């Protein structure tokens, strides 16, 4: 384990489901503390790739290197024990519980040896942490059911980081969100970047937003990475052109078969 090693390195990974090739010789590098924007059409293999990194699927070929050490991710909990956390679109928050109970779910502070919860202390720590992260909510006592979509997404991300995640996989964190709501989540990702405690892979459809927070953009097409550039060397126009070109090519291909 070294400081210069990437947080995650994926080398020559392939995955088939029966006759369907989902991923073909995928190479991807996530340097420590960086944000990688992963874009691509529906069915390009983004979720298969994410599920391999979270240990849900095992690759047929290739290797995964975490912190410079090759690992075989056996299960989701195995990946989690290595600090790899995923925040899915269908959030794992509990609507009937307060924000701070959600933050501490399965990591509750107890008044040992008594079995009672230290609600006051959990509240204080949750409030302090969310403040540090710049997540604005009126009160950590609020039930999650009463929060907006953006606030929920921000809480879910903050919870994952608070559980000492070192690699965060965000599955479309900005989907179905208005500009103001998306702002909340983008600001949080900016904040996390500055702290450099966590490295992030972010799947997204809105290129302007990806360009704003990501350090590097990878485009997945037909199960393989077909575009890989640092954000400083690309632009919204280029990404749009690439996607339009993709679209045209795939449809012409279909028309010719």
């Amino acid at each position, binding site marked *: 384990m070294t400081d210069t090693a990437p947080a995650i390195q994926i080398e020559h990974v392939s995955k088939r489901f029966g006759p369907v090739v989902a991923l073909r010789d995928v190479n991807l590098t996530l340097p420590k503390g960086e944000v990688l924007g992963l874009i691509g059409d529906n069915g390009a293999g983004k979720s298969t790739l994410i599920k391999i990194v979270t240990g849900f699927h095992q690759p047929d070929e290739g290797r995964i290197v975490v912190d410079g050490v090759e690992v075989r991710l056996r299960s989701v909990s195995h990946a989690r024990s290595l600090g790899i956390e995923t925040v899915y679109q269908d959030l*794992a928050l*509990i*609507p009937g519980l307060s924000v701070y109970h959600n933050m501490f*779910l399965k990591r509750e502070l*107890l008044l040992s040896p008594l079995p009672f*919860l230290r609600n006051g202390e959990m509240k204080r720590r949750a409030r302090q942490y969310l403040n540090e992260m710049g997540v604005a909510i009126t009160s950590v006592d609020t039930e999650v059911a009463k929060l907006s979509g953006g606030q929920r997404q921000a809480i879910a991300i903050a919870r994952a980081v608070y559980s000492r995640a070192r690699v965060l996989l965000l599955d479309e964190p900005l989907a179905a969100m208005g500009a103001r709501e998306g702002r909340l989540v983008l600001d949080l990702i900016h904040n996390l970047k500055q702290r450099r405690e966590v490295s992030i892979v972010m799947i997204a459809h809105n290129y302007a937003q990806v360009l704003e927070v990501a350090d590097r953009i990878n485009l997945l097409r037909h199960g393989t990475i077909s575009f890989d550039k640092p954000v400083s060397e690309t632009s919204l126009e280029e990404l749009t052109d690439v996607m339009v070109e993709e679209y045209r090519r795939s449809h012409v291909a279909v028309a010719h078969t």
Partner: protein
Amino acid sequence: MSRVASAFVQVRWASILVVAVALGAYFAFTSPAFLTSSNLLTIAGFLCATAIVASGEVMLMICGEIDLSPGMVFALAPFVMYFVYNDVGLPLWIGIIAGLLVSAAVGLVNGLVTVVLRVPSFVTTLGMSFLLAGLSLTFLGFPVPTPQEGTRFADVMGHSQVAELIWALGVVAVVQIGLSYTRWGLYTISTGGNLLGAAEAGVNVARIKVANFMMCSVLGGLAGTLEAFRISSIDATAGGYDKMFQAVSAAVIGGTALAGGSGTVIGALIGAIVLSVLSDGFTLQGIEAKTFNVILGAAILVAMIVNVTLQRRRQQGAL
């Protein structure tokens, strides 16, 4: 609005408390006998068993399941107690514990069939209800008097109405504290609120469900045992679907969601009070038995409509 008042309306069970107080005031003004101590004890006697069964039902409903059989365990537990005391010859307190253990076993079967075999709990516990009701009527026979009548032990076990009320309030307090201040409560709300999310976070949702099935059943057995001592009689037809429906109604009137994920035990206690006050108040007013159910049903509907409306307005921030 003052801070006290706004804190009050934030509490889930606040609206049903308003309904309960309004009902109490109405009957107090219209029937002079309502506020007498003997009548209040009658109300307490009715609500104790309902509140105890409802406490277990609330936890089960919060974690997304329901138990239709606690009314049958209600009748079974005191019979087990009587059998162990009278036929086996063991001390009465061992008989009581045996009755509660049999109740727990019924809950365990309910839980395992629901969680492991994935039969919906409505069906599992409906089947269990018929099974237990049939067994009770076949084997338990005629009503028998409760043992050790007139002793202090029988008084403590519910023969004294005050003792039964203390049992009920104690159960409500313990379960509410468990719900609000322990991991058991957090995991119960999580299991019912977002089953997949809770399991992903590492909550053992199967264990939480089975444990709540067992507790609901044990509380059904406890309520039946206390009730048997109160009326000095062990009767195979005690409890039944009536007791179960009263408990589920008390829970729902008290704000517990049928779909799971939220609810309070204190709310269910107030729900039980509302039901008791309604039936006692109408009896005092001399309403005929056949019209009684019509009025009771309508009153429950009105109480619920008021309650739900208040809750919705509170959520919209209008209150």
